[in-house]
């Protein structure tokens, strides 16, 4: 293919990302499993990039989990989503940024439905008015939170305290980027780079000095699949997918995995514990496994935030080997203490997977 043709195709997979004034909606999974991530994102936007971002305490789940597990009917989901848009409208915002990739996909799916079936939009407006007395305007710009970090990656790089380089060898860290399926596989034109070549995380990693690993199962799902995980008997499917990915990436000896989806982060992180217990496999030479960070946590690390303030102590795979490679200073004594230096309790040690 001629270069000009490639450029034209690539242009189809770019999107407008708003500059400022964001209405932020949180993720059910992220704030439970990685509670420091969203706070870190808001801190980056407000304190580092000096952006206006509103975190509304009145917003609820998008119902994505219930929707994808056939518990919540679509009509209800649409009304709940309409309520989120109503909150945004009431606060005077037009740029909507969800933290969760599942939510992002669901918002896009509903907006697409309303675009193609205006009568469904009218019915939803009527449902929302009857239920809550609210009305709403559709968002002008809807992007995932990782898109915002991607947009400001150069600005963050200039303010960064650390780079994704191994200080002992001087070589770039080998990073696996994992992008949630609902980010680009549902609506490729609403992502940066499309479904096959999503650029949102690889662009960030390369800008900050890391090297992205291209391994065979790079675009394989993490295995969450909602009904695969939420039905206990089906969980084998989830962890078979996790194992497939790790079997594929481990020969490249990655230093780090970065995800933009809350669910993927859970399964790639906690999944290493399950595989070590069930299969007796640990995917790193030192026996600690491969650290898995969310994009917010990684941004916080390179900006020099205290690792325990951004919640890295709640990860299953110990992050200290990674922090040592980057050269991050941390106080190991404060890993499991609160702000008043009271011990929060320590997790139980796994059988095989080493932890610090």
């Amino acid at each position, binding site marked *: 293919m001629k270069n000009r043709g490639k450029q034209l195709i690539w242009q189809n997979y770019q999107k407008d990302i708003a500059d400022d004034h964001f209405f932020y909606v949180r993720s059910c999974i992220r704030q439970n499993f990685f509670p420091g991530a969203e706070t870190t994102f808001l801190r980056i936007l407000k304190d580092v990039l000096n952006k206006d971002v509103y975190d509304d305490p009145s917003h609820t789940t998008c119902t994505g989990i219930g929707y994808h597990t056939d518990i919540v009917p679509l009509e209800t989901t649409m009304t709940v989503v309409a309520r989120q848009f109503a909150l945004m409208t009431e606060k005077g915002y037009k740029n909507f940024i969800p933290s969760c990739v599942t939510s992002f996909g669901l918002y896009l799916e509903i907006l697409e439905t309303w675009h193609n079936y205006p009568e469904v939009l009218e019915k939803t407006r009527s449902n929302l008015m009857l239920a809550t007395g609210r009305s709403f305007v559709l968002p002008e710009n809807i992007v995932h939170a990782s898109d915002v970090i991607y947009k400001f990656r150069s600005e963050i790089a200039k303010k960064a305290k650390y780079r994704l380089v191994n200080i002992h060898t001087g070589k770039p860290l080998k990073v696996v980027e994992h992008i949630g399926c609902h980010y680009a596989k549902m609506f490729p034109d609403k992502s940066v780079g499309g479904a096959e070549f999503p650029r949102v995380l690889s662009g960030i990693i390369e800008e900050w000095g890391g090297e992205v690993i291209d391994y065979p199962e790079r675009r394989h799902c993490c295995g969450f699949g909602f009904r695969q995980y939420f039905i*206990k*008997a*089906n*969980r*084998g*499917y989830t*962890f*078979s997918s996790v*194992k*497939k990915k790790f*079997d594929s990436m481990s020969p490249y000896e990655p230093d780090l995995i970065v995800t933009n989806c809350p669910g993927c982060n859970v399964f790639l992180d906690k999944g290493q514990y*399950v*595989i070590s*217990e*069930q*299969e007796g496999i640990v995917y790193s030479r030192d026996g600690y496994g491969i650290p898995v960070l969310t994009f917010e946590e990684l941004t916080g690390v390179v900006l020099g935030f205290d690792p325990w303030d951004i919640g890295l102590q709640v990860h299953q795979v110990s992050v200290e080997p990674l922090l040592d490679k980057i050269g991050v200073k941390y106080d190991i004594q404060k890993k499991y203490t609160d702000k008043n230096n009271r011990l929060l309790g320590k997790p139980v040690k796994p*059988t095989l997977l080493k932890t610090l």
Partner: protein
Amino acid sequence: MPNFGFSIHSPTHIDLDKNYRTIFNYVKVKEPSIQKCIFCGSCSATCTASNYSAMSLRKVNLLLHRGMVQEVRSLTEQCLLCGKCYLVCPRNVNTRRIILLIHEALKMPLS
């Protein structure tokens, strides 16, 4: 080990770089016509044993390529060696000899 209530399944994907090709290579050297097979299925359509079992020479050849030895063994045990598949093969693959060579290879220590 904690009781998770589920287990991890082995992958069923076929890795063409890693699968077990010893039997296929053994047969190929002795009976090169196996490489002419176009997987049309004429052999399977005419197979006497297929009326009473899962035997299908087309499937045997596919499994040989994939290195799935146990499945090849159980299928070839059903063959009656009547040779009808040899008569109908549009590529003149010596199917009967292939079955005999597979039997031979399966008795070897590597299998």
